[in-house]
């Protein structure tokens, strides 16, 4: 296995440790779309845990920097993407963290259906954009 894949695996294990810590110490599920929505609505939770979690989330990147990042699309497409991500994750009650990591770790068939759905649709979307006749 390449060094890159080891990093991906260890990074994933850190993500899982964070999700486990929030569940075991705060009794909360680390679903970022829900935490974000509640926070912007001012529902920060007991002792402002939601705000603290989001602050902690961005802290490492704020300290050491993001490294090389490349946005592949222009602003209108990013805006459309963001709208769909925001609306879809709230309608479906979860995103990659809530359903994909926490829900699957909880052996939830509901989250499995959600995760398979967004994975397959995302793969299809990338296929159409990159290999289809569109754009």
């Amino acid at each position, binding site marked *: 296995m390449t060094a890159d894949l080891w990093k991906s695996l260890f990074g994933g294990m850190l993500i*899982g440790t964070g999700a486990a810590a929030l569940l075991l110490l705060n009794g909360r599920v680390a679903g970022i779309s829900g935490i974000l929505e509640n926070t912007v609505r001012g529902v920060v939770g007991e002792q402002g845990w939601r705000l603290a979690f989001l602050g902690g989330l961005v802290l490492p990147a704020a300290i050491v920097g993001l490294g090389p990042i490349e946005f592949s699309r222009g602003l209108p497409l990013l805006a459309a993407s963001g709208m769909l991500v925001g609306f879809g994750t709230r309608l479906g009650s979860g995103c990659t963290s809530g359903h994909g990591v926490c829900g699957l770790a909880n052996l939830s068939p509901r989250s499995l259906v959600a995760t398979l759905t967004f994975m397959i649709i995302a793969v299809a979307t990338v296929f159409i954009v990159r290999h289809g006749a569109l754009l």
Partner: protein
Amino acid sequence: MKFLTALLAGALFGSGLLLSRMCDPQRVLAFLDVAGHWNPALAFTMGGAILVAAPAFLYVRRRHTNLLGESTELPDRFKISGPLVAGSAIFGIGWGLSGICPGPGLLLLTGGSVQSLVFVGAVIAGSLALRFMPSGKQA
């Protein structure tokens, strides 16, 4: 105490996103692009996260409390509904267009780019939009 533990949990989660480089949209798109130069990294990241988190969820599922003995209920595991599938499909389109989901989107804000501001602003607008729809119900 709840503030500090949440801060720590967030920092662990954010370090993981950074180490696995899931904050780079190109890396996510390379996983989703099965017909191109496919990169399996995201599967390793998700697999590692699920494996580590699973025992914690098992503990809470069995005991209905967290480690501190506080009553803890987990979300429903079995309800599969129209909004669940429709919402996930809509999310999938958005994710596939940019390669960015909510967590990495927030990390990208630290770079101060216009792109990240537009993306996260749109995520917030999209999630609040559901609240203002007459039949806006979650899954």
